[in-house]
């Protein structure tokens, strides 16, 4: 699980970096392009951080928990 979410995280962290760089770059652009670009780049950054949070909040199931879940499924 950690391997998979680490690989995904590489792409998502790159996206956070690009969003920050874009935010800085957009500051030098004329209005209204500046506001539009900054709004979507901010959403990109926040969505990326939300994605990292969702990926890393899940805990790997212990073998005992997996066995218990399998037993419950079999009973049901």
């Amino acid at each position, binding site marked *: 699980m950690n391997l*998979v979410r680490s690989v995904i995280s590489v792409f998502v962290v790159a*996206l956070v970096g690009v969003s920050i760089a874009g935010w800085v770059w*957009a500051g030098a652009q004329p209005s209204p392009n500046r506001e*539009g*670009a900054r709004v979507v780049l901010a959403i990109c950054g926040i*969505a*990326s951080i939300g994605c990292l949070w969702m990926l890393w909040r899940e805990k790997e199931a212990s*073998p005992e928990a997996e066995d218990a879940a399998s037993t419950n499924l079999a009973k049901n």
Partner: protein
Amino acid sequence: MATATACSVTKPSLMERLNGQWHKQALWTYTAIVLAHWAEHLAQTIQIYVLGWNPPDARGVIGIWFPFLVSSELLHYGYAIVMLVCFWVLRKGFTGRSYFWWMVAFWIQFWHHIEHALLQGQAIVGYNLFGKPAPWSIVQLFVPRVELHLFYNTIVFIPMVIAMFYHMFPLPGEEAHANCSCAWNPRDLKRRAASLGT
């Protein structure tokens, strides 16, 4: 005759195979295509934001050698519709929370595809909306094109990877509903191997 009828009943359809025994391979292929496209968008934005290139000159990696890949509205539209079709075709392999996130990605991609259809329509007809000098989409009225499409690809990519993550590591109770071999559980594989004495 009877044999042919029996075979046609038991043989799974292409859709059933793509969402069952071939789901894993289909998702890997689809992910490779999405990541390649995604990497091009990231490269383009790095060229603009970090390297200081002019937006018209920033064409990603492959676009430097093949500029028509960036300038052709048809290729952009074609990619958008291929993505949309893949989301729809592969959706039934997902269950529970992974299905929810997969469909979130599908509906966002649906709107993204509408925007590309507008651009493609203008390129075909030869008339640009809103009196603009080039084909223009609705949200592009408020957001520059490079940032807009980075944004679209981001908000499609994020629910898509969350869906795939929950598909590979299903929540308790959801694993039993999956008909494919995508669930990734090395610990369980080790236990099975040990029980077989290998």
